[in-house]
C-alpha cells in the first residue's frame, strides 16, 4: 500500500494565522478512498479544499454561534482548521468530491481508471 496522506505541519508555522489539525479517518475502498474530517462549526461556505503539488489541503473556517453573555468555562479552540494530505498517485485528482454535514466533511477520492482492479477474461 502506498502513502495516501502525510501530515504537513511545518508549513503552517511559517504563517501568522494558527490552525488546528482536525481529527480524520481514512477508509480504503475497492474504488478509492473516503476521507472524513471533523470540523465542528464549519459549514459549506467555510470549507475550502484545494489540490496542488500532489497535496490535498483542507481549510475549514468556523462560524460559531453568537452567544450573549460572558464566557465562564472555556474548552474549545478558537483557531480555524487546516490539514494537508499527500495524495496517493493512484488517486484521480479530477474526480475528488466533497460534502459537509454537521461539521463532518466527507471526501471521496476515487482511484484512476487504470489502477482499478479489473477482471481479465481468459479467451
Amino acid at each position: 500500500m502506498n502513502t495516501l496522506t502525510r501530515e504537513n505541519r511545518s508549513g503552517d508555522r511559517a504563517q501568522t494565522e494558527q490552525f488546528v489539525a482536525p481529527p480524520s479517518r481514512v477508509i480504503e475502498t475497492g474504488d478509492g478512498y473516503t476521507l472524513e474530517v471533523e470540523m465542528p462549526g464549519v459549514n459549506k461556505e467555510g470549507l475550502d479544499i484545494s489540490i496542488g503539488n500532489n497535496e490535498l489541503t483542507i481549510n475549514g473556517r468556523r462560524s460559531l454561534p453568537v452567544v450573549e453573555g460572558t464566557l465562564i468555562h472555556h474548552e474549545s479552540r478558537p483557531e480555524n482548521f487546516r490539514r494537508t494530505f499527500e495524495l496517493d498517485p493512484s488517486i484521480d485528482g479530477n474526480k475528488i468530491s466533497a460534502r459537509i454535514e454537521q461539521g463532518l466533511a466527507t471526501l471521496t477520492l476515487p482511484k484512476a481508471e487504470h489502477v482499478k482492479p479489473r477482471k481479465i477474461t481468459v479467451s
Partner: protein
Amino acid sequence: MTLIRYQSPELSPWSAADRLSNLRDELNSFFELPFSSSLARAGQLFSGWSPALDLYEGNDNVTAIVELPGMRKEEIEISLHDGTLTVSGERKRESSSNGDKAERTERYVGTFRRSIALPTRVDANKVSATYRDGILTVTLAKAEEVKPKQIQVN
C-alpha cells in the same frame, strides 16, 4: 463534573493508544501521523470521548456550546438534574461495506457523556437546544429569582 478514569500513561496496555499503534503498524506507511501522538495521550486519560464545552452566562440565560461533529440530532440526549447539565449520546460506527479494505482513524466512536455544574439556578421548563454545523447550543433560562433586577427608588 465528569468522572474520568485516570490511568498512568505507562500502565495501559489495552488503551486507545495501543490500538492506534497497532493500527499504525498494520497500515504502515498508509498514513504517517505525528498528530496521533497527542490524541493517543488523550485516549489514555479518558475512557470515552469528551467533547469540548464552552459555557456562557448572560443576564437572562446560561448557554452551553458543545462540539459534536458528525452526529444526528436524534443521537444526542440532554438532561438537567440538580443544577447539573448533562449532554450524552452515542456516535455509532457506520458498518463498513464489503468493499472496504483498510481504515485508519483518529475519530472517536462510541458513547460520550459530558456534565457541567451550572453557575446559577435555571428554569427547567425553559431549556432549548439547537444542533447546527456539528455544534450543539443549549440555552437555559435563568430562574426568576436569580435574574438581576432594577429596583426603583421612590
